[in-house]
């Protein structure tokens, strides 16, 4: 991965090229004269202070990934073995029906979760952008689920979706006595319950990013189009939404990342059941490693997850980097 100074900079930041920094001043002085001990210390002190973090992240992220990678190539079961068996664990992983279920669920879940969260989040953002009253309050209402733990969300929705006492019963009592909503107990539908709860939790996030994008669009564009006689829905569909491309990209990437790691929500809401109907790669990894003594298979599944995330995140960061280059 390449690093770029402007990669993550917020709009309105100083371009990084303009900041020369203190160390360069000293560096220039150093070139001209011989180093005094004090200068040398001043030059190295920042790097010295930074190094513990670097070591921590190097070990905690990169070395540990390599370690997991190694275990995925070993015969580890209950305890780590440091032998080499090639891709045996990966073959075993892909031959496990449970992993097949997990991958299929991940696709269904991600497709629905992204589509619904993005459409609803964008709709709310557009509605909120119509100079409504109490906008701050409404925004806070849509966004508060993001502050909750997925375990809390799962617990609440488990109760709401409970067919005996929850929503089903409420609707039946309202007079629609044949109403059935027992998805959470049915293997073929339970994954949609996870989608509902995940959408509820994450829409506010999509809304916040879209709203920030909308606020960055010049109002005069809308005015000009209105003078041309275009109606508001048409203006939004054919002019505004295409201008939100960067916001779409961010939302898609970050929501995909959320969906690949989603673990707590599934565990709290369905505990990967009924049976293993709502198994996801993250829950599979956890149970293989910590419950079923298949450390090698667990590590292989973790590497599959990592590669999926990297396949999404690295090109994303790379494209952001190129866009920044072109702007300068």
């Amino acid at each position, binding site marked *: 991965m390449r690093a770029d100074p402007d990669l993550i900079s917020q709009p309105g930041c100083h371009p990084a090229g303009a900041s*020369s920094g203190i160390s360069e001043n000293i560096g220039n002085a150093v070139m001209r004269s011989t180093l005094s001990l004090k200068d040398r210390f001043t030059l190295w002190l920042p790097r010295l202070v930074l190094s513990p973090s670097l070591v921590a992240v190097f070990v905690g992220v990169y070395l540990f990934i390599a370690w997991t990678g190694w275990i995925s190539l070993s015969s580890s079961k209950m305890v780590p073995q440091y032998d080499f068996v090639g891709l045996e664990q990966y073959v075993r992983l892909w031959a496990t029906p449970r992993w097949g279920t997990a991958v299929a669920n991940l696709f269904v879940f991600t497709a629905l979760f992204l589509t619904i969260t993005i459409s609803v989040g964008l709709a709310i953002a557009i509605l909120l952008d119509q100079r409504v009253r109490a906008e701050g309050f409404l925004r806070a209402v849509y966004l508060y689920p993001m502050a*909750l733990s997925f375990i809390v969300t799962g617990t609440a929705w488990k109760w709401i979706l409970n067919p005996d006492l929850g929503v089903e019963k409420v609707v039946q009592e309202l007079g629609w006595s044949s109403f059935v909503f027992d998805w959470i107990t049915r293997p073929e539908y339970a994954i949609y319950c996870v989608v509902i709860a995940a959408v509820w939790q994450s829409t506010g*996030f999509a809304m916040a990013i879209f709203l920030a994008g909308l606020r960055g669009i010049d109002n005069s564009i809308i005015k000009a189009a209105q003078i041309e006689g275009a109606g508001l829905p048409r203006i939004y569909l054919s002019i505004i939404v295409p201008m939100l491309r960067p916001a779409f990209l961010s939302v898609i990437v*970050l929501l995909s990342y959320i969906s690949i790691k989603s673990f707590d929500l599934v*565990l709290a809401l369905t505990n990967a059941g009924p049976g293993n109907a709502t198994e996801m790669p993250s829950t599979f990894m956890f149970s293989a490693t910590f419950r079923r003594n298949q450390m090698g298979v667990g590590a292989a599944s973790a590497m599959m997850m990592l590669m999926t995330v990297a396949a999404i995140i690295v090109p994303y960061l790379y494209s952001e980097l190129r866009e920044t280059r072109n702007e300068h």
Partner: protein
Amino acid sequence: MSTEISSAHRSHQLGRIFIYGSLIVLAAFYLMPLWVMIVTSLKSLDEIYSGSFIGLPKLITIEAWEKAWGQACIGTACDGLRPYFVNSLLMVIPAVVLSTGIGAINGYILTKWRFPGSNLVFGLLLFGCFLPFQAVILPMAQLLGKLRLSGTIPGLVLVHTVYGISFTTLFFRNYFITIPDELTRAAQIDGAGFFRIFFSVMLPASLPIIVVSCIWQFTQIWNDFLFGVSFTAGQSSPITVALNNIVNVTMGRKQYNVDMAAAMIAAIPTLIVYVVAGRYFVRGLTAGAVKG
């Protein structure tokens, strides 16, 4: 002419009704789970089983809250959530302080003391923001075992600090890059050194980003479940793990009111932070969206 104006006026009004109507219906949907959690937690178990779901309690009782806080069984111990709430506090406070402090000084170095390769260093740190933690929990469990920290609160503090550095460094770097270099250079000419500039020039100017970083880290660490469930067991678990255990106990009649009170207890700290400092929370949230 006048009919034209009034029809335009009417369609405008219809539009406003549509906008407010949709926003209110959506708001009701987003508030519903919170409402259900609160009213359920204030009902007696009999009332719940007699079929009251969304309505107000006939008789408000805080019995479920008392049970969830002090008596509910988690594993074999029946001390309620209180000890786990304390665990989470003991974990979250040092981890937030450490990761924010380290992030602040890293951001300072990466903007004001740039060195050859400092951008590469930043890029490598950044990937930590997008790491699926499943890829590191196995080795981390091994390392914590070797350090004799497995199953302890200090172990969790260490883990959360290490994986928090990426985000906090990102926050502070992006903030400090907007502080003009002239400021730090002037301080240097006045004879201030590395630490002196950090403490008397940078930190006083960075209150907003300190708040953003603390809130983000607090929410993330308080809500964490994966590390908690992987590295602790029994009495040393954080509150999310304890909550999940309470809810998944299936003995006797399911105590939904206690479940909901327990969920509320686990949610209240982050909800308070959100209500008090929502603006800063949103800033942390959107900072991950590269150029949003």
